[in-house]
């Protein structure tokens, strides 16, 4: 008697849940119908909003008529590894070029993906300092960061490829101002000695900073703007010398033909305008995005010119050199600085 009651109850629950999931099955089966083409986008999380806006514009063009999108966004390295091991993709948009190189090595992306005028780059940003309201510690320059008592929050360059821009910027600015490699290494050591938190990703670092940790957040301009657009903003300072962040995009070898049109559209003025509105720096200077970007420190001049802008190509060579020199697990310069900072405590 009693047992029957329980069995009935359980059966009811299971039936209900199955019914629920059955509805799920029917609604998710909608892709691929009508014979229209689908572009699979795999990318890092931040440009999702921009890509969505670009997609809305793209389907209004002749080339994009009727095109459907299937999208996947996450941490850049995770996404790249997923595509390498078989995740279906036509167009990839990553945070660092090394994530595309991984796909080139796997034979999924053509060797000459970065041969075009844009060198494979589809969106830009720069490294900035996030500070507390009113900038109480008056942080303006890289030297201010290594003052005693300044607490830095930066995403962990060891576990997140996307966080490597910060460490590179810290190194490059020493060289740029005439310092030697030794000076730069010394600066990096001091920098990491002041780090109080190394969260997993840029987003985690922002959360940790907003949660009260540290005086300075190593951030990206576009993330700072996007955060402000979503009501989680923080003040940011653009240093005199900083690094240009270049996010690569590429078409896979076996992609559907319409993906070429999509990439072209992403690089067009219209596509870049959408990036600008979400806080990315357009890859060309003459993009008209209407003059104002909400969430920027100065919305009417959202992307002020940086006096000394470093780039990976100009100042460091290439990403593979950078990976070996700075981030090698055994003896990369940044790896060692992080380890030294831990031992000192």
């Amino acid at each position, binding site marked *: 008697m009693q047992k029957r009651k329980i069995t009935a109850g359980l059966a009811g629950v299971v039936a209900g849940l199955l019914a629920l999931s059955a509805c799920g099955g029917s609604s998710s089966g909608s892709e691929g119908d009508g014979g229209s083409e689908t572009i699979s986008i795999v990318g890092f999380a931040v440009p999702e909003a921009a890509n969505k806006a670009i997609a809305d514009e793209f389907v209004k063009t002749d080339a994009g008529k009727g095109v459907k999108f299937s999208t996947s966004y996450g941490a850049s390295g995770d996404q790249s590894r997923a595509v390498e091991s078989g995740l279906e993709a036509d167009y990839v948009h990553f945070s660092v070029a090394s994530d595309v190189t*991984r796909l080139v090595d796997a034979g999924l992306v053509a060797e000459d993906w970065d041969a075009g005028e844009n060198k494979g780059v589809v969106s830009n940003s720069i490294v900035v300092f996030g500070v507390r309201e009113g900038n109480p510690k008056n942080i303006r320059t890289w030297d201010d960061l290594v003052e005693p008592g300044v607490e830095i929050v930066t995403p962990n360059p060891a576990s997140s*490829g996307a966080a490597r821009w910060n460490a590179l910027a810290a190194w490059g600015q020493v060289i740029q101002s005439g310092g030697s490699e030794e000076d730069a290494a010394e600066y990096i050591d001091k920098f990491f000695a002041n780090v109080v938190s190394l969260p997993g990703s840029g987003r985690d670092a922002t959360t940790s900073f907003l*949660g009260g940790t540290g005086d300075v957040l190593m951030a990206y301009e576009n993330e700072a703007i996007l955060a402000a657009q979503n009501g989680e903003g923080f003040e940011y300072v653009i240093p005199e010398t900083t690094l240009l962040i270049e996010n690569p995009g590429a078409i896979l070898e076996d992609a559907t033909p319409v993906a070429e049109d999509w990439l072209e559209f992403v690089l067009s003025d219209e596509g870049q305008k959408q990036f600008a509105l979400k806080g990315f720096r357009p890859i060309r200077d003459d993009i008209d995005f209407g003059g104002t970007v909400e969430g920027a420190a100065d919305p009417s001049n959202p992307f002020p010119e940086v006096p000394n802008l470093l780039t990976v190509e100009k100042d460091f060579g290439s990403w593979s050199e950078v990976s070996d020199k700075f981030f090698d*697990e055994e003896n990369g310069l940044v790896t060692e600085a992080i380890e030294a900072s831990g031992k000192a405590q």
Partner: protein
Amino acid sequence: MLWFSLLVLIPLCAVVVTAAEGGWDTFWTTITNGQTAAAIRLTVTAAAVVTVVNVVVGPMIAWVLVRDRFWGKGALELLIDIPFALPTIVAGLVLLSLYGHDSPLGIDVANMPSSVYLAYLFVTLPFVVRMVQPVLEQLELDVEEAAASLGASRFTTFRRIILPSLTPAIAAGAALSFARGVSEYGSLVLLSGNLPFKTEVTSVRILSSVENNNLAGAAAVATVLLVISLLVIVLLDVLQRRVAVRD
């Protein structure tokens, strides 16, 4: 058995094989790297301490849930499983706002080693409680009452009658909570700050290796954790048998 092999044994073999593919040198340099070794030490210590806490507190919670009666007990019962269902990022978020810099209680463990313990306590809570609960319910009050009526003090009843019956369940819960602690990552990433030698756990080291395309290194660290967990599980099993035999 086939399902077990397909699901567990083969993937685990894949991990060990990947670790072995790197060769003994890679394996050894990976795990003797100072930072990794420190991370392994912290992870294992924290998991062990948290397991001990769970072994003590878990049965207490189960006892209260099964035997005690008071207003609001139902609400406590509802809470037990939530740590499992809550996505770990959200767990990290709320723990950060309650026990971080802006803590309303003034308890600030952010970026301290204690944050690792806190996060582990949160994610491993249900194990011992839920393991002990069904056994306690199955345990017949008659036996206890008989013991009591024969003049056994409550402590003796507990030690001689209840504890031996609960031991297998407690041991099982302990093994699971240790294992889970060793592998946890998501909930502590915001709170701990991943500081090398201080709050960095092994999962972060594994991620670093993966990010550097060093799968062999990642697998090496994972293998070490596997072996440690296996040892702990066997140890608990042996302990539990000895307790069971003694009584």
